[in-house]
């Protein structure tokens, strides 16, 4: 299609050919438009139809009708769930788990990347790095089953503590609601820290070595180099990752909630996603559950936009 560049120019000034030229340009477009067409159809079906389906949040939807011919009920469902105590407990749990994620899980990859960067033994560093990615590739189901057993009443940790005589009775890790959130956060940390560090490894490896050399000539020690070179250089990455995580403040991780939670810890592990599924698919209150889901997505979009706005304003880094 380079012919376009060659061919169009000489004919450019000829008005007589304008319609045929348009036809030629149109014909040249066909292969490109055909290549994009499947994706367009895909996005319309699997992304935009569900978005359009959000209208049922304002209707009384029943399975026998389609999206668009149900009785309109305005904000009824929104008012209903906002008065529901179960929703608010799910909301509280979701926010608390997200805050733990943002303040405990989020810094870990940065610490790991900074630490590994300082390890002098290359082989050791590579080994740790490679191993630390691995839990990311394990199914959440497996990770949950593993930690549920290791921290179970007759699991590795309790047996060990009993053998060394530190405790008499087993510590109930997974049946104590008070421990659920912190344990779930730790499991999340175990699974994700290594993988999430990749982006920081990338950022660190992109730092110009001359900066360090210059700093050393000026007498900067290792701490100062981390503090005044490495950290500032990866700050933009950190901020972008943090902005992205803010959007997730009102979203929970269903895997944590459903795979690690159980009947005992439900008061602490019940999150909005769980609530949506239970009232939506469990009791078939589709409109109601859609209203809950919509509330959640609208808040997270607003949060992303706000976070982006502030970071653009103060730091000159933003997503858009």
């Amino acid at each position: 299609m380079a012919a376009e560049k060659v061919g169009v120019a000489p004919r450019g000034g000829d008005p007589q050919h304008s319609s045929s030229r348009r036809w030629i340009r149109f014909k040249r477009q066909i292969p490109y438009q055909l290549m994009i067409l499947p994706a367009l159809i895909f996005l319309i079906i699997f992304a935009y139809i569900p978005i359009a389906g959000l209208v049922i949040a304002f209707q009384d939807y029943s399975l026998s009708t389609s999206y668009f011919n149900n009785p309109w009920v305005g904000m009824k469902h929104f008012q209903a769930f906002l008065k529901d105590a179960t929703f608010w407990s799910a909301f509280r749990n979701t926010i608390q788990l997200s805050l733990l994620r943002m303040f405990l899980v989020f810094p870990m990859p940065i610490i790991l990347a900074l630490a590994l960067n300082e390890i002098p033994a290359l082989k050791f560093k590579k080994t740790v790095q490679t191993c630390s990615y691995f839990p990311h590739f394990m199914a959440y189901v497996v990770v949950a089953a593993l930690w549920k057993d290791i921290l179970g009443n007759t699991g590795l940790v309790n047996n060990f503590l009993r053998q060394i005589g530190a405790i008499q009775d087993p510590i109930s890790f997974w049946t104590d609601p008070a421990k659920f959130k912190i344990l779930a956060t730790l499991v999340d940390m175990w699974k994700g820290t290594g993988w999430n560090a990749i982006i920081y490894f990338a950022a660190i490896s992109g730092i110009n070595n001359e900066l360090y050399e210059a700093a050393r000539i000026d007498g900067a020690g290792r701490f100062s180099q981390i503090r005044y070179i490495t950290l500032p250089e990866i700050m933009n990455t950190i901020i972008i990752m943090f902005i992205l995580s803010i959007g997730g403040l009102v979203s929970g991780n269903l895997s944590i909630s459903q795979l690690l939670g159980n009947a005992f810890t439900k008061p602490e592990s019940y999150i909005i996603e769980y609530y949506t599924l239970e009232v939506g698919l469990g009791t078939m209150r589709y409109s109601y559950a859609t209203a809950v889901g919509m509330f959640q997505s609208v808040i997270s979009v607003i949060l992303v936009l706000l976070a982006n706005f502030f970071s653009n304003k103060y730091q000159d880094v933003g997503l858009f």
Partner: protein
Amino acid sequence: MKAKKVSNAIRLTTEDKVVNGVAIFIGLFTFLVTVYPIYYCLIYAFSDGTMAMAKQIYLFPTSPTLDNFRAVLTDKLLVNSFLISVARTATAVVTSVAFTALTAYALTRKELVGRRIYSMIAMFTMYFGGGVIPTYLLYRSLHILNTFSVYILPGLLSVYNMLLMMAFFRDIPESLVESAQLDGANELKILTRIILPLSTPILATIGLFVGVGAWNDWYTAAYFINDQDLMPMSTILMKLVSAADAARKAREMLADAGGGAGMVKKGTTSVSIQYATMLVSIIPVMCVYPFVQKYFVKGIMVGAIKA
């Protein structure tokens, strides 16, 4: 960073020693905390279940046996679910990588009129979606609930993967494409003969993402599939774990009541079988992992630097 190592070798200040010490400690800690639970899973799966329950194992399997794996491999449901997992993963990787590559290539072509609008249409879906209920209702009206296609169709394109791929494609010299165009190659030929062979790192990376996602996904089958024969291993394992939980609780209650001792028969327990199942589900990932590892690090780093 090489220079740093040289100076380290020459003279280590106290600060250097402290920094090295802390860094090595964090590295060692990460290594142990990551590797040991997986190793524990391994030794438990090879242990005699009752023996392991009687005496806690730490470093080596107790009375090593393959009974747990025998129990897994003779369980029709587990074997079937393993095959379903393999089938859905293989299909998802091939279809999704092909579809993503086609779309990403089209979107990086400057000739494509409407490029910006198409990109915006795609990017918007990264930030906003209809949520689970409208999605469920969509699948219902498409009649893909409770069919194999519910594993494949919705995952054909991930916008995030597409952006990664586009970042990679943009780096391929335009002159290669232009000369192929002059030779009369059509766009599909350019994509398959020129672009894709040059893009192995990103194709492997995205193939890995899609594959791992498909292999580990328990959610789709838990909510969109009823038929047990269509359930992948992760979903079956999830059910097994909750069943084992219940069984263990019942046994503990029995033991508390004083009648439990005779209940456990020698050989396998629900826990040891569960560990074997977990191991079986990790093994395929472990086998592929070393080979794609170098690609995904490269692939994601390219994406990270660009994005």
